[in-house]
């Protein structure tokens, strides 16, 4: 069974630029999550989708972050404009039941 796919794996941008991350969940998983993981910390949930609807985006900085999940499969997370403090690993996870399965993440560096 293929795992969660994410791209790109690495991205370096300057502050105030925009960036987008892509995620393809495990086939058949209706629930998709985006997490932010700052170095030395555990992942922090940004947004949760059930099929193509948003379940929870309470911790998403909506002035600069946006996410969508068209057709209930792939998802994109966008940051515009980026700040220095957005430097982190962005993890996508999917689930069918309680256990969440994570992708390899995208390491974002904002200079």
């Amino acid at each position, binding site marked *: 069974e293929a795992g969660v796919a994410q791209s790109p794996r690495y991205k370096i941008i300057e502050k105030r630029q925009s960036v987008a991350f892509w995620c393809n969940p495990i086939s058949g998983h209706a629930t998709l999550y985006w997490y932010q993981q700052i170095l030395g910390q555990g992942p922090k*949930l940004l947004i949760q989708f059930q099929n193509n609807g948003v379940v929870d985006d309470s911790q998403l900085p909506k002035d600069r972050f946006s996410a969508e999940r068209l057709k209930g499969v792939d998802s994109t997370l966008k940051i515009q404009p980026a700040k220095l403090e957005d430097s982190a690993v962005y993890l996508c996870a999917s689930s069918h039941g*309680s256990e*969440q399965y994570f992708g390899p993440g995208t390491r974002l560096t904002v200079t």
Partner: protein
Amino acid sequence: EDQVTQSPEALRLQEGESSSLNCSYTVSGLRGLFWYRQDPGKGPEFLFTLYSAGEEKEKERLKATLTKKESFLHITAPKPEDSATYLCAVQADGSARQLTFGSGTQLTVLP
């Protein structure tokens, strides 16, 4: 607010030297407690889910246990390939299955 505290932050062991990692949690009602392993540059890898106090689960050299306030990950006769960051997370009753993570314990097993 759900909280997860892991200790120690870092642990160095000699190969074969058994030890335990601690995860203390505060949650209004526990649906499940999860252990993940994270290698550098990779996403978290699911290890165990525990649902009720007294429950234990084992996988190779790892055994996870759960009480009403904390969970332990016991590592018996570790090998260098067990070196990783171990993350603990809780899922609360009534939540949409979001995970709240601790900051992890970075384990290094020396040959």
